[in-house]
C-alpha cells in the first residue's frame, strides 16, 4: 500500500471531519470523540450528500441532507436504509495521518 500523508489528527476537530481532495473525488476524514480516525468517500449512498458535513456521533455520521446514518467503519447505512459507501484505509502514526491512495488508484483503473 502507498500511504500518503494528509496532515495531523489535530487538524480535525473531535466529533468532526475534514475533507481531502483527490483526483477521484473528495474523501472525508473523520475523528471521533475518542480519537479514532476513519476515511470514507465524501458521497452519501442515498443522494450523494457530503458526509463530511454531517454530525459525528460514536463511529457514525448522520448525513446532512436527509439524515441517513452511515457507519464510519464499514461505510454501510444503518437502520432501515440500504447502501454503502467506500471506506479508505487510514493509518495514524503519532499525530500524523496517512491514507492509502493506492486503493483509489485501483478504483480509477
Amino acid at each position, binding site marked *: 500500500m502507498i500511504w500518503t500523508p494528509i496532515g495531523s489528527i489535530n487538524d480535525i*476537530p473531535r466529533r468532526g471531519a*475534514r475533507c481531502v481532495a483527490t*483526483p477521484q473525488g473528495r474523501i472525508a476524514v473523520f475523528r471521533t470523540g475518542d480519537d479514532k480516525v476513519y476515511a470514507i468517500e465524501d458521497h452519501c449512498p442515498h443522494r450523494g*450528500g457530503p458526509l463530511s458535513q454531517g454530525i459525528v456521533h*460514536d*463511529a457514525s455520521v448522520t448525513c446532512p441532507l436527509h439524515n441517513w446514518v452511515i457507519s464510519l467503519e464499514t461505510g454501510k447505512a444503518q437502520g432501515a436504509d440500504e447502501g454503502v459507501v467506500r471506506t479508505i484505509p487510514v493509518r495514524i502514526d503519532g499525530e500524523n495521518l496517512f491514507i492509502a491512495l493506492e486503493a483509489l*488508484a485501483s478504483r480509477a483503473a
Partner: protein
Amino acid sequence: MAQKLVVIGNGMAPGRMLEHLFETAPGRFDVTIFNAEPRVNYDRIMLSPVLSGEKTFDDIVIHGDGWYIEHGVTLYKGHKVVAIDRVAKTVTSDHGVIEPYDRLVIATGSTPFIPPVPGHRLPGVITYRDLDDVDAMLLAAQSREKAVVIGGGLLGLEAAAGLNARGMDVTVLHLMPTLMERQLDPAAGYLLQKAIEQRGITVITKADTKAILGEGKVTGVELKDGRIIPASLVVMAVGIRPNAALAKDAGLAVNRGIVVDDGMLTSDPAILSLGECAEVAGNVYGLVAPLYQMARVAASHLAGDTSSRFTHSETPTKLKVTGIDLYSLGDFADGEDRDEIVLRDASAGIYKRIVLKENRIIGTVLFGETSDGAWFADLQKKATDISQMRETLIFGQVHQGGPGADPLAAVAALADDAEICGCNGVCKGKITGAITAKGLTTLDGVRAHTKASASCGSCTGLVEKLMTLTLGDGYNPAAVQPMCTCTDLGHDDVRRLIKAKHLKTIPAVMQELEWKTSCGCAKCRPALNYYLVCDWPDGYADDYQSRFINERAHANIQKDGTYSVVPRMWGGMTSSHELRAIADVVDKFAIPAVKVTGGQRIDMLGIRKEDLPAVWADLGKAGFVSGHAYAKGLRTVKTCVGTDWCRFGTQDSTGLGIRIEKFMWGSWTPAKVKMGVSGCPRNCAEATCKDVGVICVDSGYEIHFAGAAGLDIKGTEVLGLVKTEDDALVHIVALTQMYREQGRYLERIYKWAKRIGLDEIRRQIMDDAEKRQGYFDRFVFSQTFAQVDPWEERVSGKDKHEFRPMATVGYAQAAE
C-alpha cells in the same frame, strides 16, 4: 572471568533488569552504571506523593547505596555518558571517565518535551521528571504564589495537585477540550475536571499557549486568545520524548526510540536497550509495567537464555491524586462491531464504561469507583466471553450471580424510612403509602402529592422503581416521550434539570442525567447545545460539533453540497449600494443563481464551501451581516411600506420591523422564528401567518403569535393590543424569551403555545409586568453574547479549518 557490563542510565527499568540478572546469573557480569542524575535508583512514579508531602525521598528509594556495594556495582553518580565508541567498545562520561564494555545497556529514559514558545527558557519554567524538579517546585511553593501547569495529562495533573496541596494557587492549561483525553473518554474527562476543580485548581481547556511572559523571570502565561494568566512558576508537562540522541550519535538504528528487537537487542548485537528510550515493534512506552517486562527479557538475554520475548500488552492508567479514583485500560473507541455498557450514578459521581467486541471486553473506563478495574482487566486479558453475565457485568464482581443483580430487588430491599428524595426529605414509606392511598399512577401525581422528585429530579429513577414495585404493570413510565434513545428523560425534564443542577456542558448533562450512551446522537446533541446556549449565555462555550452543518458553516447546504448565502436586508429594505455589492459578488465568484426569497431578501445559491469566507468578506465590506437563513433563530422580519408611503398605513410598519430585526438578530431559539409587521389590517406583510406578527391599527399595535404557513397552515392568535412602538418591542421580546426558555428543540412557537396554553402566555406577557420585564431583561443579557456577526467572525479567521480541505493529494500520481 566475569564479562564487563556497562549500563547507561540508572532508572527503574535497568534497576529491575539487574535484580533479575543477579538472581539468575550471579557473578556473570562485572557491572558499571553511569547515571546523569546524581543519585541511586528510586521509584520515579512516587515523585508525586513526595511533591504533595505524603512521602519523603527516602521512602521511595529502590536501591540504597548498600545494594550497589553488595553486588559489586560501580555507580558513577552525576556522570553523563557523552559518547559510545562501538569499535573500541568503550563509553566516555562528561567527567572524562572511559569505561570498556563487553555488553552495553542503554537505558536513558525520556526527556520532557518543551514546546518552543517564546519565553520557554525563562527562570521559573520547569519540567516534571526527576527529584531536582520536585525540589524546584517545593522551593517555588514556599512563596504560596500562583503556578501554571501546562498540560492536563497524568503528569500535569499530579503536579497541579501536589502544588495545590503545598498551598499554591494553581491553573492547569490544557490544549484539548477534555483532560487526559488519551486515556479517558469525554464523560470521564468531565468528571475528572470537576474533581480537580473541587480542590480549588482552575482548569482551562482548549488553552493554546502563545508565550511565557516575563523579563529575567516568569511572570505569567499568555494564551492565543489573548488571556494572560499570572504565575511565578510554570510547569511544562505536555509530553515526553524517548532520549535516543546518544544512541543515534553512535550510529545505532533509531526511529522514535532506539530500535530493538523483541529480545531487547539494538542494531549492534553487543548493545541492548530498554526502558522508555527503547522502541519495540514500533511502540514506545511510558508506564513501568511494560518496562518491567523488558527488564525481564533483557536480563534473561544477558544471562544466556535468548528464548524470552517481549510481547505488547495494554497497561491500565491510574492517576495518583489522593481522592480521585480513575482507571482506564484498552481501547474505548466506538465502532459498529462494538457494544458498550454504561453505568452512571450522578449522585455518587460514578461513571463506568465497558466496551465489548464479540462479547469480550476490549476497553474499560472507570471513574469514582475503580475497585473492579483489576477484575475487568483480567476478563479482558483472558478474553472471557461475558454473555452469561452481561446484564450485571457493569455492577462488578460481587454482583455476579449474587443478590443485588436485579435493580428492582435493591429498591424493594430498602427500609420504609430510607430517604429517597434528598431535596424534600421524602422517605420510601411515604411514597409507596401515597401511591396506594391516593391511587396515583403517574410520576406527576407522585410529585404533586409527596414532593418527591419535584425539585432537582435526580431521584426520579428511584421513584419510578418504587412505582413499578407498587403498581406492577399499572405503571407505565414511557408516558413521557424521551428526547432520544440516549436517555429516558423528556425535553422538559432535561431543561428543568439543566437549570436546577447548574449543568453547563454537554458532558455534564450526560453524566449528571445518566445518559445511556457515551457521546449522544444527532438528535440529542443539537438540542442540548441549544438548551445550554439559551440557559447560560455567558458561561457556555457553544459546541460546534453538535450543530447541524448549516449552523456550523453559517450557510445553507444544497443538494449538490454547495451552499447558499442570504444576507440580512433589514425589514426587507435595500439600496442601490447594497444591490451593487451583491451584483459584484455574484460576478466575482461566478455564483450560478440569484433569487428573491419568500422572506423579502436575496439568496445567492450554488457557492462552493471554500469560497464562503471570501464571499462573506466582500459582503461584509458593503455592510451586510448574516441573514441566519439557516438558523434555529431569528430569520426575517417581513414588513410592508406603512405610513412612509402607503395611503392606508396607520403606523411606521417598516420602521418597527427594522427595529425588531436589529434588536433580535443573532438570537438562537428552539426552532426558527419568523416575524412580520403590517401597516394596517390589509396585512400585506402576511403578519398573521408568522410566528410573531404585528398588525398596526390607529389605536396602536395588535400583537399576534403562533401562526404557521409551512407544513401546517395556521392563522395567528392575538396576544393583545399595546399603545406605543416601545411597548410592542418589549412584549414581542418577552414573548420570544419565554418561548426560548420553555420550547422544546425544533418545536415552533405555535406548537409550544398549544402545549402551554394561550391564556397562560397572555397572562405572563400581557398581565404580569414583572414577569414580562424579567423575560425582557434575560433576552437583552443573552444578546450581549449572541449578537456577533458569524460571517465577520469567520472572515477574521474563526474555524478556518471548516472551509478548506485538509489536504489535496494524488494529482501527481494520477498524471503519471
